[in-house]
């Protein structure tokens, strides 16, 4: 079955206003997603947006702050899921808790799968 990547974008500060009870709910919902039968891989990335390396023509490689410095959102993690079609992958992604905590989910097909 084809694989799709879900790229999770979100504002790490969004969690600050949650109560312990809500944090626990959120933790449980993410845990449940990682264990879904169609989830093949799930990884979280650090909250620090990190650096981007570029190599302008004819000069040395340069690192700059992450491409997200103007927005508060960072790429917070990625899941690889199995789905019959792009539409089905989107439908599955609609249930992802990321969407309920102010984040966004980008759905991309993995070529050759």
């Amino acid at each position: 079955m084809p694989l799709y990547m879900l790229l999770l974008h979100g504002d790490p500060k969004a969690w600050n206003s949650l109560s312990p009870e809500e944090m626990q709910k959120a933790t449980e919902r993410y845990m449940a997603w990682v264990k879904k039968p169609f989830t093949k891989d799930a990884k979280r990335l650090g909250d620090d947006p990190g650096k981007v390396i570029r190599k302008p023509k004819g000069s040395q490689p340069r690192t700059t702050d992450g491409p997200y410095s103007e927005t508060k959102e960072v790429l917070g993690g990625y899941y690889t899921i199995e789905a019959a079609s792009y539409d089905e992958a989107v439908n599955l992604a609609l249930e992802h808790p990321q969407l309920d905590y102010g984040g966004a989910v980008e759905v991309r097909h993995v070529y050759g799968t």
Partner: protein
Amino acid sequence: MGEGSQPDILLEHLFRREAGRMVAFFARLFGPAHLDLAEETVQEAMLRALQTWPYQGVPENAAAWLFRVARNSAIDAIRRRKMQAGEAMLAEIARGDSIREVDPLIEEQLRDDELRMIFMCAHPEISEEASVALSLKTVGGFSVREIARAFLADEATIAQRLVRAKRQIRERGLSIEMPHGEELKQRLDSVLETIYLIFNEGYAAHEGEDLIRRDLCEEALRLGQLVATSSISTPKANALVAMMALQAARLAARVDEAGELVLLEKQDRNRWDRELIGLGFHHFNLSMAGDEVTEYHAQAAIAATHARAGDAESIEWPWILQFYDQLLEINPSPVVALNRAVAVAKVRGPEEALAEVDHLEKRKLRDYYLLLAVRGHLLLELGRTSEAAANFEAALKLPCSEPERRFLRRKLEACRSPSASE
């Protein structure tokens, strides 16, 4: 990815419980003036759990994991802020580190810290309202939003109360140390009162979200037990726990499947929580240890009499009336008197009860919907249906919750077709 060994859900209220214990621990460590820092430290630990547990699995001892992460972030904060007495704090943290994670000693320490924290939150120098909010926020692990929802207040009001309470703690230099001797007795009264207020807020049949209200009752019961099972427990503390447990046992039976209010007498006793009733009687027995009879004793006795009756017919109303007499003597409030009138009707008939209710109306409770509802009920029993209807109609014009409104409407209909009277 289907790793079968991982649990699907965590222990119920794990975060909330641990947050309360950890905030208490760090508030003692940093000092009460740094309550905010204690809360941030704990929040950070829970955030870390959210970020790692779904991907790396839930650690075997989740509570100890949270505590360790919070400890590390506390060390960072102490160093970063160059806190006064930071060295002593670091030493204390290091001492905690060397203790095994599930050591009963550290369990005991956490319980002590929590107890101290309740005493500080319920300090007489902080207003009652603020004490309740601060206890729920710090020891209870509730958020501002959750407290606001439970109290039908807006978030800004609750947030302000918390800010004010924390400022009072700072400015008056309130200590987180346990009081002793005569001071302990007084301070314990404030603690019990705060717990009682939390419980009542959850138990009162106001509008609002049922779930959060049940959580309040649960939290009040937990705090009450924390006090009642500690070394500073008193018969009064046991009476409070008994009263709360026996009343909370009936929570589920108060509404039927259709969401309609069910009067105590008509409740399905199979839906009463046996475990809570057992707990209630356990503490009720312990509450008999002294000579002192408090308001909580009288209320617990009333709840116990109801719990003991196998069905509505075997309720010992004369006993209940006697306990109401006691209660009224200790707390001569019109609301208690109104409740007592219901027992008077059972023992001496509706006529006498009606006279007492009328007397009450002249005094204070004129615009209280419950008074009109009780009077309507008594009049209906006496067959004075048109007067009863007028009372239910007047009650319906006053503020009350939707289930209560529907209940009053059903009573009103009963007035119009007396044969269907409940």
